[in-house]
């Protein structure tokens, strides 16, 4: 299936290669570089590139292209999904997935890749199994290893691959048993010029951090499971139980994992927590443009809107922007024309605003496109859809775990058209 993998950085250097079958020359990447040159933006490189003898399937994450070389028919999503899984694993192991991190840990990377694919077919992609096979590097372990000469590679071969619950390793022990669940919801919305919602939907995830001894069997129930319209589960969730009783029943993996992601049914009206008043105008014949932006809270259920960040791609004709924020700081990059304004928290009594003028190229006609405004924000302790966890029960173990639930609402792709 997957023949080879090349890692290419933003400046177009191949800094790592790995082959699972016979070696494919790195000159195959020339086709990729061609496509890269043709693309105006790094994101515009087509994910699947045909070449005379191979197919290149690439994903771009953290400004690194992961280019897989394929020789024959294979479902492209299979490869794409796998590549993303590789990136997730790297991130899990090294904290960040950057060129430097990969270069520093090249041996671990190689060991990981070796375990993840056998002859191009995925073998062990479950992070729990991998972590048993190859211990993630930590500073302490590196120091100890250099002194004692012991290794990163697990002395015992993993049991997970053989068990019926491959996602959980056996013999887990904690002194403090705890299970935390984060319900994080993202609002994707497009708001039109007049402030009315064109489309809005809520996507949510339940991320878990479970540190429990032994083989606990958990059930999690919601107050209002009918809200969940379309769900996808971690493989540990018993699907039949969900179908029948709308209860999540599972033996959790050890550590952090995504239990569930869901979509809230679209019949529900989505509460839009912020509104934007904007006035961006260019006058014909003058080299000045007006820029006014005011943010305000709306339908926040009494919670504060925090970490607000506004960004907008201004028209190419704009040379500079001279703005005055009532709070926070703003930056304008004259090269990329990207305006970003770090607002912080919205105070309902004193609404944050950004006002001022933009200078345009003299002589050039007024730009006829309208910039869109992208907004990011966070609201703590609120799941905007109203989803509530009812209770969490544990079976199979004697001790009493510490349980915690946290709710958060974030902006996903939240755009305001002007």
């Amino acid at each position, binding site marked *: 299936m997957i023949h080879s993998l090349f890692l290419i950085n933003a400046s177009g250097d191949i800094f790592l290669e790995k082959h699972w079958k016979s070696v494919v020359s790195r000159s195959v990447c020339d086709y990729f570089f061609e496509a890269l040159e043709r693309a105006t933006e790094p994101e515009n490189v087509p994910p699947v590139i045909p070449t005379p003898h191979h197919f290149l399937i690439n994903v771009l994450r953290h400004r690194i292209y992961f280019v897989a070389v394929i020789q024959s028919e294979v479902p492209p999503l299979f490869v794409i999904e796998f590549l*993303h899984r590789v990136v997730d694993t790297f991130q899990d192991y090294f904290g960040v997935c950057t060129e430097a991190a990969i270069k520093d840990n090249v041996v671990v990377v190689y060991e990981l890749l070796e375990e993840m694919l056998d002859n191009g077919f995925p073998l062990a992609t479950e992070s729990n199994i991998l972590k048993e096979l190859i211990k993630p590097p930590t500073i302490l372990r590196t120091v100890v290893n250099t002194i004692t000469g012991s*290794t990163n590679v697990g002395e015992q071969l993993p049991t997970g691959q053989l068990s019926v619950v491959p996602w959980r390793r056996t013999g887990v022990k904690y002194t403090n048993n705890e299970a935390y669940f984060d319900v994080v919801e993202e609002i994707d919305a497009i708001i039109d010029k007049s402030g009315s919602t064109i489309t809005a939907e809520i996507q949510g995830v339940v991320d878990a951090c479970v540190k429990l001894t032994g083989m606990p069997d958990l059930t999690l129930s919601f107050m209002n499971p009918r809200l969940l319209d379309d769900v996808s589960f971690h493989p540990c969730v018993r699907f039949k139980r969900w179908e029948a009783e709308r209860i999540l029943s599972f033996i959790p993996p050890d550590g952090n994992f995504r239990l569930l992601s869901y979509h809230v049914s679209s019949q529900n009206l989505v509460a839009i927590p912020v509104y934007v008043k904007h006035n961006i105008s260019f006058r014909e014949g003058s080299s000045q443009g007006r820029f006014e932006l005011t943010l305000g809270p709306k339908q926040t259920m009494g919670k504060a809107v925090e970490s607000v960040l506004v960004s907008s791609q201004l028209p190419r004709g704009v040379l500079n922007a001279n703005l005055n924020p009532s709070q926070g700081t703003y930056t304008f990059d004259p090269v990329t024309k990207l305006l970003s304004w770090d607002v912080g928290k919205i105070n309902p009594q004193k609404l944050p605003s950004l006002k001022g003028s933009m200078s345009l190229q003299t002589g050039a006609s007024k730009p006829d496109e309208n910039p869109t405004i992208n907004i990011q924000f966070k609201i703590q302790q609120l799941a905007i859809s109203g989803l509530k966890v009812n209770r969490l029960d544990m079976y199979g173990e004697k001790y009493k775990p510490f349980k915690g639930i946290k709710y958060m609402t974030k902006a996903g792709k939240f755009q305001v058209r002007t």
Partner: protein
Amino acid sequence: MLNHCFLCRNEDLKEMLESNKESLKLEAMKRIVGLIAKGKNASELFPAVVKNVASKNIELKKLVYVYLVRYAEEQQDLALLSISTFQRALKDPNQLIRASALRVLSSIRVPIIVPIMMLAIKEAATDLSPYVRKTAAHAIQKLYSLDPDQKEHLIEVIEKLLKDKSTLVAGSVVMAFEEVCPDRIDLIHKNYRKLCNLLVDVEEWGQVVIIHMLTRYARTQFVSPWREDAVFDENSEKTFYDSEEERRVDQSKPYIMDPDHRLLLRNTKPLLQSRNTAVVMAVSQLYWHLSPKHELSVITKSLVRLLRSHREVQYIVLQNIATMSIQRKGMFEPFMKSFYVRSTDATHIKTLKLEILTNLANEANISTILRELQTYVKSQDKAFVAATIQAIGRCATNISEVTDTCLNGLVLLLSNRDETVVAESVVVIKKLLQTQPSQHSDIIKHMAKLFDNITVPMARASILWLMGEYCEHVPKIAPDVLRKMAKTFTSEEDIVKLQTVNLAAKLYLSNSKQTKLLTQYILNLGKYDQNYDIRDRTRFIRQLIVPNEKSGALSRYARRILMAPKPAPVLQSAFKDRDRFQLGTLSHTLNSQSNGYLELSDWPAVAPDQSVRIVEVVEPVKEAGAPLLGKSKPGKSAEKFYSDSEEEEEGSSSEDSSSSSSEESESESESEENSDDSNKSSSSESDSEKKKKTLKNKKLQQQKPDSKDRYWSHSVQSHLFFLNKFLVVFKFNLRCIALLLIIITKLFSIHIVLSFSNQFVASCRCSLLRLCVFLACQFDAVSWHVRVSLQASFPVFVPETSHELLHRMTGKGLSAQYRFTRQPCIYGNSMVSLQLTLSNSSDQALENIHISEKSSTGQNIHHFNAIGELHTWTCGSVLFSFSTKEDEFSVSIQPAVGELLVPITMTEADFTKEQGLSVWLTNDRLGTGNRFKNSHLLKYLKRLICHAFLLCYWSMPFLSENF
């Protein structure tokens, strides 16, 4: 110099490897792996490295393996040194060591060791550990690519491994099967059911491979579930509620889905919930290629969900949706907004979304789509704007209602400042005008005016062509344009020059008086042009249009040649012919057949022998299918209903008193009685006789196979079939009714809801048949507008009383009663479930009781509309008629208002919120209601009423009893 350094370093590494210290060796290996990762050649260290293959240190050993696999091909002789180590490890008691030895051994691409590998694989394939067997499955592919001559032996191993029952092995062996012998479909037969049942528990990557393989398999083994008549297809999303029986009844030759086909569809469905996007896509393509059209809608939501994923995933999924949306608009229409473009999307994502939006456009939604497209035109991404204009053009040609609107919009764009926008609009307008030129001479005039300002060659050329083609419509302007062109001819682009020559020729033919000189001037200019194309064209045109002694017959036809009516270009989707490829494949993505693509065969006309899939050995009962059916809620309600009717019967009908108290004994005694009965009444009509026999047979069939799940679908099928004789499923109109489904006896509870009990009383000569049917009706006037966030609670009290629907006197023996079950309806919030009890009190068996379609459709569609306009909410009634073989009885159900409400439990806070909402409704919306059209007003009224009832419910929770 550099080379020297490198050698030095290698020397250095060699020393380290040959030292005695483990840590030094490890350090050296780590550095070597670093070299390999960078793509540098480290092959000359082979002898030094290979010595460490038997090291005790696991990490060191692993790194040596990495090295070995990388360079063995280049250093074959030296690689052989390591083989004995692996051979020893293959006998290790630890399964994981055996597995890893096999893994490395098979990865060493040295032809000499093929026999050793073959032996190792054969041995590993019978290993006790499933993990080792999995590794063996992987090794099969490696050996096959190393030496294809081993194919026959390898197929034997594959055959053996396919029989494996472990979920670990399944994915890998199917992968090997796909690689080595994808055409040996016969190997799958016996394993088909096992694979279907194991599928849920196989690891995700294996699932993808198995699903793709099974898709191909199913296309060769089952007959097509798709019906011929396209009309049905068109509506099939809307007739979502239609049950399977209907299709069968409608068809002249009833189609019965192979139970194995059904098994595959059923077992893959839960995988739509997988977190792995590849699995979701695989299931989606399976449904697309295999499921009956009306079941397709289940995949829509999941596909739309994938759009939230990474950019690359979006790209592939959107491509597949684009192909699907051409054939089946309805699937994605409700999710249209998910395809709205965001300014942050990558360009190829944007164009795909546009493509889909254009595919989805129809008369109803075109205005929304056009409004959306209008905002895209203002985008900063000019390539995207150009694509948008193309899309508008396509909408305009596909939907004739909006052609004018689109044209006007495009004409406005002509004054846009951006050249690419203008050029694209001109090109699209040209195409549009070609379809209906006569009405649009003003647009052509407008374009002529703009001509001076447009500089993009393609656009200029397009305008010139338009002038020439429709010079009759603009007789005054065209010569003037030609005059201007004559001035600037030399400085134009080639493509513009060519069109100028064309324009000149056409004008010469239609209006030679004004343009003769101009034409000759232009032809002269063209004659000496640098470009030979233009010189050629000029020469050709001159010969054609200017009559002289040399030119033959051709010039007489010049007018007919040049002014021939030209067919308008067809604007169609680029994804039009993509469906020749299996969805979700690489070939589909690239729209060209890629290496190793396996074509999906067409459905066979006659299904191949089904019995090949029957496995002789009785397998332990799999849990897979059963709980899904037994546990689901509707099943429960059906069960409950069953016991209800039991009580009822005992109370009401005295003849039934002999019927047993417990269900089990009943069903058994029944069949006995039944046989008695049939003996006794042997003299009576043969028809009814036959029927009873079938009944009896069914009973017997039910009892036998209860635990063997592979049989159950068979008997269900026959049941369904049987039931068809009684009940023709019907639809009133798409919105109002969905019906009637299946059976419950003690042995069977199926998640579809009809229940049915039959009782034969020995003492009585006539057969009494009692039939209970669950109806789900939507009373159109009031539907649930209760917000979904409020959870409907179960009814506190369900009245036992049933209402008369058809009296036995009027019904000539057939009587019908109905009762509201107050259970949530499985067909959706806007439906009410209804229990219908049919009983026969006549002497003769009544046959073919069904709800007649003819009368009901006609009448009811009308009726419902009437209700809609009356704005009533009290008494939406369902009218239909019963037919038996001879007679037809019209009946109607008038529900009390209370039956149409959902009971709700809510907290006080929620209540206040809802109350607030309804207050807002009354104050604001009703006040301004006049402005809304009637239909809008109606909607608000409905909501208002619902809110009112909500309030009612809150204040009087026991009110429901009175309804």
